[in-house]
């Protein structure tokens, strides 16, 4: 087990941003869960003690929702910093810029969304002005010496733009480029999402073409031979622990870290993954 995804909050500040004309809304394709994650400084302290007791995690990804809107963000960053392992911050970047200097010594990689090679494409998905904000964030993040991860949401709409996006990504030289398609989960909270669906085999072809053309890039998707996080554990800020299995559309709740040790959950995940691999090979 190498990676722990820490879900700090389910809240996100993107939805309140103005959408562009004809767009179904800002980030309507997102499959995050809703509902408040209840936590306290004491709960977080307890969770990170459990994480630090288990020595085999070598990367932690702080994610959400949008982690930067959480009032506990700094506490979590200080805790991950104390673990002295590779730390990735997964953010939409809206509130990133004023925090960059503070994060310099504490975060290794900043993972940002790039869904278009221009405002017309990206702003359709993420709201007015998002492309300019992202490009500014990428420049400033690079200037500060962070590793960068790029996440691209792909649908029919930006498929024709993907070659141009690849050119931008190639210049950025990110640690990874993760492409994803619309996921059919948590649909009850998403209205007007039909526009985001795209053909899976077409997507697969695009990934293969990009991988051939940009062999220097580490490109990942569900269709890649190599999973970016083959065995990961999801821990929420309230202590709940989840795993993700390819065959399940929802992450599976395993229990609460406040009640058991991380190692027990890791062993459960290993068993589940082994079982899944066996089933997939059958």
């Amino acid at each position, binding site marked *: 087990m190498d990676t722990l995804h820490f879900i700090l909050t389910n809240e996100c500040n993107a939805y309140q941003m103005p959408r562009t004309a004809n767009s179904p809304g800002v980030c309507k394709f997102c499959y995050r869960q809703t509902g408040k994650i209840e936590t306290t400084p004491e709960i977080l302290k307890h969770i990170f003690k459990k994480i630090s007791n288990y020595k085999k995690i070598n990367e932690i990804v702080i994610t959400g929702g949008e982690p930067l809107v959480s009032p506990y963000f700094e506490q979590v960053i200080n805790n991950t910093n104390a673990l002295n392992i590779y730390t990735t911050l997964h953010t939409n970047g809206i509130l990133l810029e004023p925090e960059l*200097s503070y994060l310099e010594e504490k975060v290794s990689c900043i993972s940002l969304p790039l869904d278009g090679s221009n405002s017309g494409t990206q702003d359709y998905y993420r709201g007015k002005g998002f492309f300019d904000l992202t490009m*500014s964030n990428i420049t400033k993040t690079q200037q500060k010496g962070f590793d960068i991860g790029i996440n691209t949401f792909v649908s029919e709409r930006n498929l024709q733009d993907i070659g141009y996006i690849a050119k931008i990504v190639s210049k950025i030289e990110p640690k990874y480029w993760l492409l994803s398609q619309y996921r059919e989960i948590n649909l009850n909270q998403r209205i007007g999402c039909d526009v985001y669906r795209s053909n899976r085999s077409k997507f697969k072809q695009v990934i293969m073409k990009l991988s051939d053309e940009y062999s220097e890039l580490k490109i990942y998707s569900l269709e890649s031979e190599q999973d970016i996080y083959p065995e990961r554990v999801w821990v929420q800020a309230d202590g709940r622990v989840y795993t993700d299995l390819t065959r399940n559309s929802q992450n599976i709740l395993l229990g609460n870290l406040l009640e058991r040790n991380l190692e027990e959950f890791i062993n459960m995940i290993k068993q589940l993954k082994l079982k899944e691999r066996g089933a997939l090979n059958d």
Partner: protein
Amino acid sequence: MIENCLGCQIAKKTIACPGGTIFETDNFVLNQDFDIPIESFFIIGSKKHIKSLIDLSEEELNELIILINKVRKNMKQLFEIEITYIFQDENAPHFHIWIFPQLNWMNMIGKGIQHIPSIIEYSKKYPAKKEGIIRRVNLLKEKLRI
């Protein structure tokens, strides 16, 4: 000093703005905004309880414009803020000047004075980190002390 006047209390330091007073001259005090949680949103208030620019002497006006200029320059140098909005609202009971930054994320809501109310509303829903605000206050304090 007028009792229950926020501006007077801030000038007298009986009420502290986030990070404390950044800088003061003979007639003005510089603070982070007391109420709106946006990084680098600075307020210059008068020490006297007055309402308008027309209540200031020529000497005080000079002092004020030099201070505004100093703050604005440092917002650019320290925080790379390219655009600001500078306001003085005479509806307020105590004279103060807003030096309101246009941070990158605000461009998503819109550029121009007409978007300021929406930006404030958004920032109250998703406030900047108090620690981040204070870090910037401290940086400006240090710079202005030199």
